[in-house]
C-alpha cells in the first residue's frame, strides 16, 4: 500500500456568524496517497474549493486537522517551518485571467517564489531555472519577458502551472484548472498535467465539476455534496457501480458526445435524505466507501447492482 501523503481528519470550515454558521465543509475525512490523483467532484457550492483552500491554509479551519507527511498543517508554526511547508504544497487556480498579476512578466511571476525562499540567487542560475520551467510546460524562454495579457488562456494556465512547479513541490492542489479553457486547450493542459505527474512523481488533488475529465485524470474520486463527502473510491468503481443516490444522479446528468444514446438517456433526479448523527462510512469493497446511516446504506446497496 502506498504511503499516505495527506490525511484529512474531520475537517470543518464554517463561515459567517458562530451562532448561525454556513457549514461549507462539515466534518470530512479522507487520505491522499503518494503519487496518486484524487479527484474531488460536486456541484458548485458543495464545498469542494473550500476543502482545497483549507488544506493549503488559505483559510483558518474551524475544526479537525490536516496532516501532511504526518505533520499538522494548521499548527501554529514559525515562519521557517511555514516556508518549508509552502514549498511542498502548491496550488493551481481556476481562472488564468485573474490569478496572474498583470503588472508582472511571466518570468517574474515564476521567479517570485525563488525570491521569497531565497533560492537560485545567482542571476544566471535563476534564468536557467525559469527557462527549464517554461519548457516543462510547453512554452519557451522568449515568453519569460511577456506580460500576462500577451498570452492566450491556455498559455496563461501553463504559466500558472509553471509557477506552481517552481519550488519543486510534492503535492499540488488543482482547483478547476481547465474549466475556463476551450475544449481543445483543455486536452492540452490535462495531458501536460499527466506528463508532469509522471516525470516528477507528483501527487494531485484535482477539483472539478467536469466529471468526464475527472474520471480520465483521477485514480480515485471523492464525491462531495453539501459539505460532506458522500462517496469515495477508485475512479472505475465510482463510474461503473455508484452506490450513493447523489453519485448516480450526477453521473446520469453528464451529456455524452453520442447522439443516439443521448436520445435515450434519462436523468435520475436526486432528493436529499438528511442523515442523522449515526451516519458513517460503510465499505462497499476494501477501497470503495459510502457515507450514510446503516439503514440508508442497506437500502442503497439493495438498489445497486454490482
Amino acid at each position, binding site marked *: 500500500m502506498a504511503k499516505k501523503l495527506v490525511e484529512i481528519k474531520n475537517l470543518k470550515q464554517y463561515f459567517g456568524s458562530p451562532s448561525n454558521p454556513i457549514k461549507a465543509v462539515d466534518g470530512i475525512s479522507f487520505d491522499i496517497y503518494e503519487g496518486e490523483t484524487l479527484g474531488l467532484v460536486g*456541484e*458548485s457550492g458543495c464545498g469542494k474549493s473550500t476543502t482545497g483552500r483549507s488544506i493549503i491554509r488559505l483559510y483558518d479551519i474551524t475544526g479537525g486537522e490536516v496532516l501532511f507527511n504526518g505533520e499538522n498543517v494548521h499548527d501554529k508554526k514559525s515562519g521557517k517551518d511555514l516556508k518549508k511547508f509552502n514549498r511542498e504544497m502548491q496550488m493551481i487556480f481556476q481562472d488564468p485571467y485573474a490569478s496572474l498579476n498583470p503588472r508582472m512578466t511571466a518570468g517574474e511571476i515564476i521567479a517570485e517564489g525563488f525570491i521569497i525562499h531565497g533560492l537560485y540567487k545567482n542571476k544566471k542560475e535563476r534564468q536557467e531555472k525559469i527557462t527549464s520551467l517554461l519548457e516543462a510546460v510547453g512554452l519557451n524562454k522568449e515568453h519569460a519577458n511577456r506580460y500576462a495579457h500577451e498570452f*492566450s*488562456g*491556455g*498559455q496563461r494556465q501553463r504559466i500558472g502551472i509553471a509557477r506552481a512547479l517552481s519550488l519543486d513541490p510534492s503535492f499540488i492542489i488543482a482547483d478547476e484548472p481547465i474549466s475556463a479553457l*476551450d*475544449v*481543445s*486547450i*483543455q*486536452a*492540452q493542459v*490535462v*495531458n501536460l498535467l*499527466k*506528463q508532469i505527474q509522471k516525470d516528477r512523481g507528483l501527487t494531485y488533488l484535482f477539483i472539478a*465539476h467536469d*466529471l*468526464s*475529465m475527472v*474520471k*480520465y*485524470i*483521477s*485514480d480515485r474520486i471523492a464525491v462531495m455534496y453539501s459539505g460532506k463527502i458522500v462517496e469515495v473510491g477508485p*475512479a472505475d468503481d465510482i*463510474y461503473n457501480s455508484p452506490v450513493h443516490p447523489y453519485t448516480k*444522479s*450526477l453521473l*446520469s*446528468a*453528464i*451529456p*455524452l*458526445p*453520442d*447522439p*443516439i*444514446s*443521448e436520445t*435515450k*438517456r434519462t*436523468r435520475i433526479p*436526486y432528493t436529499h435524505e438528511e442523515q442523522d448523527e449515526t451516519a458513517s462510512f460503510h465499505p462497499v469493497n476494501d477501497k470503495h466507501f459510502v457515507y450514510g446511516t446503516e439503514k440508508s446504506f442497506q437500502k442503497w446497496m439493495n438498489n445497486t447492482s454490482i
Partner: protein
Amino acid sequence: MSETILKVKDLKINFKTYAGIVQAVRGVNFELNVGETLAIVGESGSGKSVTSNALMKLIPQPPGIYESGEILFNGRDLIPLSDKEMTKVRGNDIAMIFQDPMTSLNPTMKIGRQITEVILKHKKVTRSDAKNRAIELLTQVGIPMPEKRYNQYPHEFSGGMRQRVVIAIALAADPKLLIADEPTTALDVTIQAQILELMKEIQKKSNTSIIFITHDLGVVANIADRVAVMYAGQIVEYGTVNEIFYNPKHPYTWGLLGSMPDLDNKSDELLRTIPGSPPDLIHPPKGDAFAPRNEFAMAIDYEKEPPMFQVSETHFAKTWLLHPDAPEIPIPDAVARRIEGFLAKEDQVNG
C-alpha cells in the same frame, strides 16, 4: 419538408480595431427550419457568438461592420433594417438567452417587472394581464411558488433558477426563433440537464426554432438536430447531428471529438489534442485557416482555401481531403474507436 425560418447567406462581419481589421465572421451560410435546433460549435474566438449576435443585430457599429451577406428571417433581410424596426423583431420574432444568468438580469429590478417589461413592450395588454402571463411563464419554466418569486430580486435566486428566469423573459413575447448563447456553460451538470430538458419541452410545445451555441459536444449531441462546426470565422463542417458525430469528415471535427475524454477512455492513454492555437483573424492565413494545426495538411491547404465539399444531401465539409484527387485519410484511430464503441453499444441494446 418543413419550411425555412432563417437563411443566412455569406455573412461577413469585421471589427475595426487599433491593430487592424479583425475578420471575425468570414462568409457563413446556414439554414434553419421551423421547430429545428441548430447547434453552432467552436472554440472561443471562432466567431460563433459574433454570428449569433449578428442575427439579432446586436453588433455595435462602430466598431463592427456588416461587411456583406444577408440574414433572411421569414424571407425578410434583417441587415438593412433600422434600429426602430429591429426593436420589433427582437423579443417578438427572435429572442436571446445569454450565457451568464448572473449578469444578464438587472439586479435592481424585481424579476416580475423584468418579465412584464417585455410583454408590455410587445403586446397590447393591461398590466394585470401581463402579470398573469408572467406568472404563467414562471410556472412554465419550472419555478416553484411563482406568485412569491414574482416579487423577488435576482439575488434571491440560485444560478439555475436565474437561467430559468432568463428563459422566461426570452419566451415572454412568443418568439419564433430562440438564440441561446452558451446558456448552460455557467451551470452545474445536474442543472444543465434540467435546463436542456426545459428547452426541449418548450420547443416541442410551441414549435420554436433554436440556435444553440456551445463548445460542449455532449450538450450538442443531446439537443441538436443539425450541427455547424465553426473555426476561424467560417463553418468548416455542417450536417445532421448523426453525420457529425458518427461520420465526421473535417480534421478539426476529429480533433474536437478526440480531445474530449469519454467515460470508457483508458486513463493511461493521452488525449488527442489539437496542437497550437487558433489563428489571428486580423491577418487570416492564406489557404485553409486550419492548416497549421492540421496534421493531415497538404501543400494546397497553404495555398488555396478549400470550398465546401458535399458529402451527402445534408452533410458538407470544408477540407481539401474530400477532393477526388486527395489521398485517402482514415479517421484517426482514437476517434474511430470511440465511434465504433458508440455504435456497438447501440447494436447491443437493439439486440
